[in-house]
C-alpha cells in the first residue's frame, strides 16, 4: 500500500477573476449576514443578558436590577399559567405536526395527479398562506371559522379521557376544535411536497409498473423513500410555524409579559420565558429529527464500512513503519556506543 507523503501547504494567490467572484459572493450574502447579526445574534445575546435582570423602562431611562435566577423562580412559582400552557403546547405540537404533514402529503399527491383545473386547486390550497396573516386569522378564529360546527369537541375529549391523561385529552380536544385552522397551516408544506414529488424520476415508476408494481406499492417503495428528507423538513417547518404564530398562547404570553408594566414582569421576565420556550422548541425539533432523520441505505453503510476498514489499515501500516524506524534508530545508536554485541566468534554466523 502506497503511503501518502505529507505535502507542505502552499498558498495559492487568487487570480483577479477569483477575487472578483469572492467579492461578489460576499456582497450577495452580506444582507443575510447583516440580518443574522442584527436581527438574530444581537437580540439573542441581548435577551440572554436580559433574563438575569429585572428591567424597568422609565421615561428617564432603563433601570437594570440583577436578580440572577429570580425571573425563572418567579415564572415557575408564581405564574401557574406558563407551565400549564407549556404542557398544552408540547402535546398539541406533537399531535398536530403529524396531522399537518400527512394532510399536506395527501393533498400534494392529489394535486400532482392528472386532474382537471389542477392549477386552480393548487391556488386554493395555497391561498390560506397568503390571506391568513395575523389580524385576518384572529378575526376568523373569533368568528368561529377555525372549528367544524358539527364536531362535538366535548365528546371527543370524553372519548380520549378514558385512556389518556386529562391534560393530554384536552390538548387533543383543543386540536379538534381548531381542526380547520390546523389544515390551513398546510399550504407551504403542500408546496414543498409538490416540488419533491415532481422531482421523482418517472422512469422508476415505469420500471416498477413493468415489474407489476401497484400504485400502492409504488407509493411505499418509490415515492415515500424519495421524498423522505422533505417529510423531516416539513415537520421542522410545522413545529417552527406552530411555535411562533399569533395564535400561540405562549407567544402572546411572552409578548404580554414583555410589555407588562408590573414590577415583576418586563423585558427580563419575558426573556427568561422566551429562553425556556426556545429550549422546549429545540427539544421538540430534536425529537422529530430523531424520528424522521434519514438513515443511510445498505450500500451507503457498506461504503462507510469499507472506508473505515481502509482507514484502520492505513493506521496499522503507519504504526508498523514507525516501529521499524524506531528499532533501526535504536540499533544504530547502540552500534555507535559499541553496546551492540553480536556473537564474537561469528565468522561462521
Amino acid at each position, binding site marked *: 500500500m502506497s503511503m501518502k507523503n505529507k505535502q507542505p501547504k502552499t498558498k495559492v494567490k487568487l487570480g483577479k477573476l477569483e477575487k472578483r467572484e469572492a467579492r461578489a459572493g460576499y456582497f450577495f450574502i452580506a444582507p443575510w449576514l447583516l440580518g443574522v447579526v442584527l436581527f438574530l445574534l444581537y437580540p439573542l445575546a441581548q435577551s440572554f443578558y436580559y433574563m438575569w435582570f429585572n428591567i424597568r423602562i422609565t421615561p428617564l431611562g432603563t433601570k437594570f*436590577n440583577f436578580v440572577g435566577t429570580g425571573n425563572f423562580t418567579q415564572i415557575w412559582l408564581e405564574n401557574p*399559567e406558563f407551565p400549564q400552557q407549556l404542557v398544552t403546547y408540547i402535546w398539541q405540537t406533537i399531535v398536530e405536526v403529524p396531522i399537518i404533514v400527512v394532510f399536506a402529503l395527501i393533498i400534494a399527491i392529489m394535486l400532482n395527479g392528472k386532474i382537471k383545473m389542477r392549477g386552480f386547486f393548487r391556488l386554493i390550497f395555497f391561498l390560506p398562506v397568503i390571506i391568513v396573516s395575523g389580524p385576518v386569522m384572529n378575526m376568523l378564529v373569533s368568528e368561529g371559522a377555525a372549528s367544524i360546527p358539527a364536531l362535538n369537541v366535548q365528546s371527543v375529549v370524553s372519548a380520549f379521557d378514558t385512556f389518556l391523561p386529562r391534560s393530554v385529552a384536552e390538548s387533543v380536544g383543543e386540536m379538534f376544535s381548531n381542526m380547520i385552522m390546523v389544515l390551513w397551516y398546510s399550504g407551504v408544506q403542500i408546496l414543498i411536497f409538490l416540488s419533491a414529488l415532481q422531482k421523482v424520476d418517472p422512469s422508476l415508476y415505469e420500471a416498477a409498473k413493468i415489474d407489476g408494481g401497484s400504485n400502492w406499492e409504488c407509493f411505499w417503495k418509490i415515492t415515500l423513500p424519495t421524498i423522505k428528507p422533505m417529510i423531516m423538513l416539513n415537520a421542522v417547518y410545522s413545529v417552527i410555524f406552530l411555535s411562533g404564530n399569533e395564535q400561540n398562547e405562549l407567544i402572546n404570553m411572552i409578548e404580554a409579559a414583555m410589555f*407588562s408594566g408590573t414590577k415583576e414582569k418586563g423585558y427580563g421576565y419575558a426573556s427568561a420565558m422566551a429562553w425556556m420556550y426556545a429550549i422546549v422548541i429545540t427539544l421538540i425539533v430534536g425529537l422529530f429529527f430523531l424520528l424522521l432523520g434519514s438513515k443511510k441505505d445498505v450500500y451507503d453503510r457498506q461504503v462507510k464500512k469499507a472506508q473505515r476498514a481502509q482507514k484502520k489499515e492505513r493506521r496499522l501500516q503507519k504504526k508498523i513503519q514507525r516501529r521499524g524506524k524506531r528499532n533501526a534508530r535504536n540499533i544504530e545508536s547502540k552500534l555507535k556506543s559499541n553496546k551492540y554485541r553480536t556473537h564474537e566468534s561469528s565468522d561462521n554466523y
Partner: protein
Amino acid sequence: MKKSMKKLILVCILIVGVLAMALTGCNKKNEKGASGNVDENGVTTDEITLTFWHYEDETTINMLAEKFMSMYPNIKVECRVIEDMSTDLSAAAAAGTFPDVFEGTDSDTALANQYWADISEYWNADPENKNLMATVNEYGIGCFDTSKRFAAPMVYWPSAVFIDRNVIEKLNLEMPRTDWTWDEMIQLIKDATVDDRSGMKYYGLGYYNRLDSLYGIAACSSEERAIKGEFGFNGTDFDLSYWAIGEQQFSDLKLAGYVAPQQNTQAMEDWSGDWGTWFGATGHVAVFSEGFWSYQNLWGTEGYQETYGLDIVPYVTPNVVDEKEHNVISTMYMGGVSTSCKYPYEAYLLLKFMGWGIDGWKARLEIYSDNTITNASGVPLKNSSMPMPLTLDEEVWNGYKALFPTDEDHASYWSDYFASVTRPVPYGWYSIAGYWNFCDQYFNSIGIHDLVDNGTAKAADYTEEATEQANYYHAEAMLSYFGPNGYNVLSDEEIAQYEAVVNSFGK
C-alpha cells in the same frame, strides 16, 4: 507624508470642535426651553408642544385640546388614544417618545415604572382643587397613601343601579325610595324574579358590576373605620371580610336563579332565544348593576327605550347602613404629568383642563350640549361615555344636569342620583398600590369568583388567606414604588411598617 498627517489631524480636530459646539448649542437650546420665559401666571411664553395620551373619545379630546390651545396660543397639544396602557407606554419609554401627560387605567404600571412625576406643589397651590368631591382630598385619591401626589382623578363614572320602571309596574311592585339600603335592593331583586312558566322569565338582577365589588364600599358606615378602597382597604391594610359577605350574597343570588344570563351564552339563548341578546334590552329585568355609561351610550340614546319597551331610572348604589351621605365605588381614570416632561407646570394645566378643571368642564359642556357634533362613529359626543364632573362648581353642575332627562317624571330620580354620588371611591386598580399584582397573582389565578359562584367554595373560607395576601402585595408594592429604590418618599417608620408585613408573610 508629514504634511498629509498634519492635515488629517487638523481636519479631525475641526470636526470634533464643530460637533462639540453643535451639541453644546443643542443642549443650551433645550435648557432655555425648559426653564424658559414665563408670564405673570408662571406659564411659559415659549412656543412649546405637549403630548396628551388618553382613553376617552378621540373627537371630544381633540376638541378640548383645540380649546386649550386657544387659551394658551403658544402651547401646541398633540393627542393620542391609548390602545393598551402597558404596551403603548413601555414602547414609548423605550423609544424616548413618552407623552408629557397621560391618563391611565392601571396605576400599578405607572408607579412601578415611575411614569408619574410628583405634582403636589401644583395641586396644593391651586385653590380650585379645594372645591372637588370630598373624597378626592379626604382620601388622597392619586396620592397612593403617601404624602405626595403623583396623579389626579381625571375621568369619573360612579357606579349606578338602574331600575326599569316598566318591569316594576308589570309585576305590581312598588318603586323603592331613592335613598334605599342594600337590603331593600336585595329584596327587590328577589321580588322581581318571577317565572310563571307562561312566558319569558323576569329576572331581578342583570349585572355588569358584580355585587361583591359594590358591597365592599357599601358596607362602610361613617361610624365604622373609613374604607377608602376595595376589599376593605383602609389606607394601610385590607380586610376581606366585607368582600366575603357581598361575594357570598351575590353567589347565592346567582345560584338561586335571581340573576339574568349574560350575553353570548347558552343560558341567554335558552332564555331569550338569541345568543347575542343583552339583558338590558329584554324588558324582563328589573334591577341593573351597570356602568354609568350604559345609560348615555345605550338607554339614553334616541328611541332605544321606546324600541325595547323600557323606562330606565338611576338609583345610587345603596349603602348597608341607612345613611343619606355615603361612599360609592367608581370607575376613575387617573392622570399625571410624566417624569420626563420638560414643562411640568404647563403639563399640569393641561392635565387639569382635560380632567377636573372648571374651564375644561365648561368647554366639555359646550361640546356635549351640541348634538350635531358627532364622533367618527356618528354618535353625539354626550352619548360616547361622557364622564361626570369631579368639581362641585354650581355652574358646571347646572349645565351637566341639563344633559339628562328633565321631564317631571324622571328629573327627580336624576336629581337624587346626582346628589348621592358625591363621595366617590375608585376601584382598587386605580388607587391602591399592588392591587393589580394581588388580583393577577392570587385572587384571579385561583379563580375565587368561579369557585364561589358555582357553589364549590364559600367566600368566607378565603377571608383570612386573601387578607394576608392582599396586605403582602400592597406592602411589597409600597416599598418597591415609594421606597428608596422607587420615588423614595416613605418615612423610616412607614418603611419599617411595610417591611414587617412583607417579612411576616407566610410565617
